[in-house]
């Protein structure tokens, strides 16, 4: 817009693939960081094998690939504070939230208090979240 006040849309990034076996997870992260620079209303969703992207203690030295898992903990600095993980996807993989990185952001409206940005949600709630979006990008 002319005065620099852009339209803010709700963007959802849907991540459904395990990391490293395909390029999707890394590409999604790159695109998310680009979108964040445009001050959009961003949600990240991790479902199906996408939940493996957020596991703790990833060590990629042995496969000769870049370990990009540390980037997820920087998302808070880009004002990304809505990261949804589907509960059913965790359960059918024998995983729990304790197997995932703890993702936080600092709330500028609340004296920079650190708050959780990762939420485990059931399918029903996730359906609502996705349905509210203006744009859904799939990876």
């Amino acid at each position, binding site marked *: 817009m002319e005065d620099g006040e852009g339209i803010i849309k709700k963007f959802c990034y849907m991540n459904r693939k395990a990391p490293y076996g395909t390029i999707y997870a890394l590409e999604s992260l790159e695109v998310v960081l680009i979108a964040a620079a445009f001050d959009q209303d961003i949600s990240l969703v991790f479902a199906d*094998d996408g939940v493996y992207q957020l*596991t703790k203690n990833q060590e990629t030295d042995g496969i000769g690939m870049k370990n990009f898992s540390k980037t997820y903990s920087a998302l808070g600095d880009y004002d990304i504070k809505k990261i949804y993980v589907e509960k059913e996807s965790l359960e059918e*993989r024998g995983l729990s939230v304790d197997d995932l990185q703890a993702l936080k952001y600092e709330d500028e409206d609340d004296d920079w208090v650190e708050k959780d940005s990762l939420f485990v949600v059931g399918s029903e709630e996730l359906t609502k979240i996705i349905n509210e979006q203006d744009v859904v990008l799939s990876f």
Partner: protein
Amino acid sequence: MSALHIVNKSPFERNSLDSCLRLAAKGSAVLLFEDGVIGAMKNTKHSDAVAKAMSDISFYALGPDIKARGLNDGNIIDGINVIDYDGFVDLTTEHNTVQSWL
């Protein structure tokens, strides 16, 4: 000599592992690597199928791929041998055919 079957896809994403288990002959070996290592994990909805097949087939999983995905060795189904790349090479030489399940 027997066949080595190699599976590099997640059982949640493709039916490669299912088909491999259905069609692999008794006495053959299955190596899970890349996203295929997800099939080696305990307590998933696919774990029972693998555990059941272990009476007829020997199972291997590539350690570096397990580590990369933050899946620790302690969560591997009991009886699956975790190997490294040298072990992968050894397996290919010990079997007369290598069949890839893409």
